[in-house]
């Protein structure tokens, strides 16, 4: 125990400061929510109702920090953090994960592999799961990761993901966050793509009272393609704060980000994205789009789409829009006998589907849609 107390990681954690208002990466954000001082690690958890298994996927189930089922030759259970780096404003939170996380998975495969990880979350306190996904040259890895509350306690999840994709490899990851409305969810999502590799990293947020997500994608090899997708459906009492960074470090790289937020009730969203093109990363092709669909007169959307370009011969663009479902669309559907409220939801679901379809994987798309539909039925 005394060894843990004096570890360098812990010292670093102690030395850093919790986020403050003046940090640009916390602009519009609820920086006070990120102060987790005094929060103890959560105890052992309870099981929940297992969702229908995904065909061809190896399933791993966690109850809080304990792996209760699942095994595969290419998947190793780890007892410490891989050490996430926060480059978007939360070094203290990253250091907290590094110092105190005691469970995670390390997936490493040179052949095709499909893994499903279910995190059942229960009780009050801090949970620090981590996952490393290594797709070795030529491999095609699919990972689904679901965070599901099994009780109504206020949990705090600080999760970290690191996706490393080697030459000619491919990875598709879908994270669904289906926590109860008392919980907080913080996530670091890093990815690095080598030459000619591709990645599709998607996240669906329907639960939690406060979400902070820092997504950092590094496209490091020629002809690598990275796609970052998000569907968020916050309602009253929910605030989603998503920060992204698309880092182009090599020639002829491609990245595309598409975030679709549908805001109900008094929801609040913050999107801050940056496309960063290194000196010499010529031939970069990068896109960033954040679209907010405003369902009520009380929701709030903040968008900060950014670009920093240090190379020429690049094609970069970003777009951000905020608007509501158009009256024409509602009228069209009502004229066909669909009640106004259903019509509005139908259009809104269609709006989310645009991002989900980009997964180009029937199983993952079906799961994503199911999670989205469940949220729609629960919203007034």
């Amino acid at each position, binding site marked *: 125990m005394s060894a843990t107390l004096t570890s360098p990681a812990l010292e670093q954690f102690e030395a850093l400061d919790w986020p403050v208002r*003046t*940090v*640009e990466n916390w*602009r*519009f954000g609820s920086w006070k929510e990120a102060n987790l001082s005094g929060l103890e690690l959560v105890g052992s958890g309870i099981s929940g109702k297992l969702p229908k298994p995904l065909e061809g996927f190896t399933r791993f189930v966690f109850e809080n920090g304990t792996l209760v089922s699942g095994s595969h030759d290419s998947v190793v259970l780890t007892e410490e953090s891989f050490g996430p780096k926060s480059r978007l404003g939360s070094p203290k939170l990253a250091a907290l994960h590094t110092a105190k996380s005691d469970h995670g998975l390390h997936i490493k495969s040179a052949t095709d592999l499909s893994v499903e990880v279910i995190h059942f979350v229960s009780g009050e306190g801090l949970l620090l799961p981590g996952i490393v996904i290594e797709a070795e040259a030529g491999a095609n890895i699919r990972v689904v990761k679901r965070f599901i509350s099994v009780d109504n306690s206020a949990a705090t999840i600080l999760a970290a993901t690191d996706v490393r994709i080697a030459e000619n490899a491919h990875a598709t990851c879908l994270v669904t966050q289906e926590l109860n409305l008392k919980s907080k969810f913080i996530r670091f999502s890093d990815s690095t793509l080598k030459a000619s590799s591709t990645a599709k990293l998607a996240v669906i947020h329907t639960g939690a009272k406060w979400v902070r997500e820092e997504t950092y994608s590094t496209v490091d090899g020629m002809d690598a393609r990275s796609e970052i997708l998000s569907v968020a459906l916050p309602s009253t009492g929910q605030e989603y704060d998503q920060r992204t960074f698309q880092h182009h470090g090599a020639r002829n790289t491609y990245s595309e980000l598409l975030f679709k937020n549908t805001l109900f009730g008094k929801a609040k969203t913050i999107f801050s994205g940056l496309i960063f093109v290194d*000196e*010499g990363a*010529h031939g970069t092709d990068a896109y960033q789009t954040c679209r*907010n669909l*405003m*369902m*009520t*007169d*009380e*929701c*709030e*959307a*903040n*968008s*900060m*789409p*950014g*670009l*920093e*370009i*240090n*190379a*020429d*011969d*690049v*094609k*970069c*663009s*970003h*777009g*951000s*829009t*905020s*608007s*509501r479902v158009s009256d024409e669309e509602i009228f069209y559907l009502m004229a066909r006998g669909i009640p106004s409220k259903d019509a509005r939801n139908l259009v809104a679901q269609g709006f989310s589907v645009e991002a989900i379809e980009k997964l180009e994987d029937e199983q993952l798309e079906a799961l994503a849609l199911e999670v989205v539909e469940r949220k729609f039925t629960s919203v007034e």
Partner: protein
Amino acid sequence: MNSETATVQQVALEKDDRGNFSFPENHKYDAGYGLTKDTLDYISKVKDEPQWVNDFRHKALETFLSKPMPTNWATEDLNAIDFDKIRYYLSDGATPKRSWDEVPPEVLETFDRLGVPEQERAFLAGVEAQYDSEAAYSNVKEALADEGVIFVTCSEGLKEHEEIFRPWFGKVIPTGDNKFSALNSAVMSGGSFIYIPKGVKVKHPLQAYFRINSENFGQFERTLIIADEGSEVMYMEGCTAPKFETATLHSAVVELVAMKGAKIQYITVQNWSSNVFNLVTKRGLAHEDAEIRWIDCNIGSRLTMKYPGVVMKGEGARGEVISIALANDGQHQDTGAKMIHAANNTTSNVVSKSISVGKGRSTYRGQVLIPKHLKGCKNNTECDALLINSKSRTDTYPAITVKGNQHVTQHEASVSQVSEEMLFYMQQRGLSEAQAMSLAVNGFINDLVEEFPMEYSVELKRLIDLEMEGSVG
């Protein structure tokens, strides 16, 4: 050859040493280097200001000192400003002149070198030529005076028109808005005060030329323009500065107030020499059905930080920012726009185009805010950046906050470069690579250049040709 091209070529020939000169300094009043409470008292005494202005200055100094440099979001280059090595007030002590004969000959020579043609000068309605921090020449055309238009220096405005001036002064941009608006409030001198009475539509644009002409000397002009109900005015400022070895600071505050149905257009062509820090706060307050347009072109300076804003306070108000920025080696053009929608059915539009040449860096920083319980607000923002060389840099940092579902906002930005095909096509037709590049760049900003008055757009094209020289090959 038509007359316009002739002018362009002729002026282009003369341009080489334009703005690259200075004159012996001859100042009656000099507040010395550094900023203390005594500096403020000195300025107040020289200008014979009422007590409330002096109090205002002192309060502003406290605010300035208490605010940190905004380097949490802005460039670290701001730390290169040494506030102790700046002279905060210089004046030749002359009262504003009423006729050209009384203007000191070296000032006239400056205008010659600036390329203000003799005939044009005669026509320039109400030229407010600012030499150092005071107006060296000021001539409000009689016709304007007859209509009740007030066009005076800011110092005259606060003394002689206090009843109109004071209610709006510092209201659009409060002292504590940012560190540099506080600095300006503490040491302001020069600048204009303009009042356009109800229903008066000023036909000729009002103009002011600003210059910096003393080493380590910053200009802190303060401008307040009030357009009363249903009136219209266009104000133009252009600036060039002689080159100096050490950095100079220019920190202006410009406040516009457009009452019900009024229209204000404020046009700036900024071409400070490349050692000037140009940190300017500009904001307009638009009442019901009023319109405020900022048309802004930044070509010079070492670092420009300028985000003209419009607060749309009355229903149906409109705000617009049209911006062109050109950043060459050693320059950082950090410009943008702020659109605050504070009433129903307000509309704002931002169009920004930037060009980065050599190692130049251009940045767009914008804010759009649509607060709660409003309806029918619209914002459109477009930012396009053109990169000329492989070391050029461009950034875009917009922030858009929308509350409620009764609005429409859209933001788009793109980054591109002049295509090889386009250059090849033009070179095939006999243009040199530099000419082809220049033509392509002018094409990129052409639709915005048209928003400027003719003489400005001619000058702009000329300046861009010059900046593009030697940028390729």
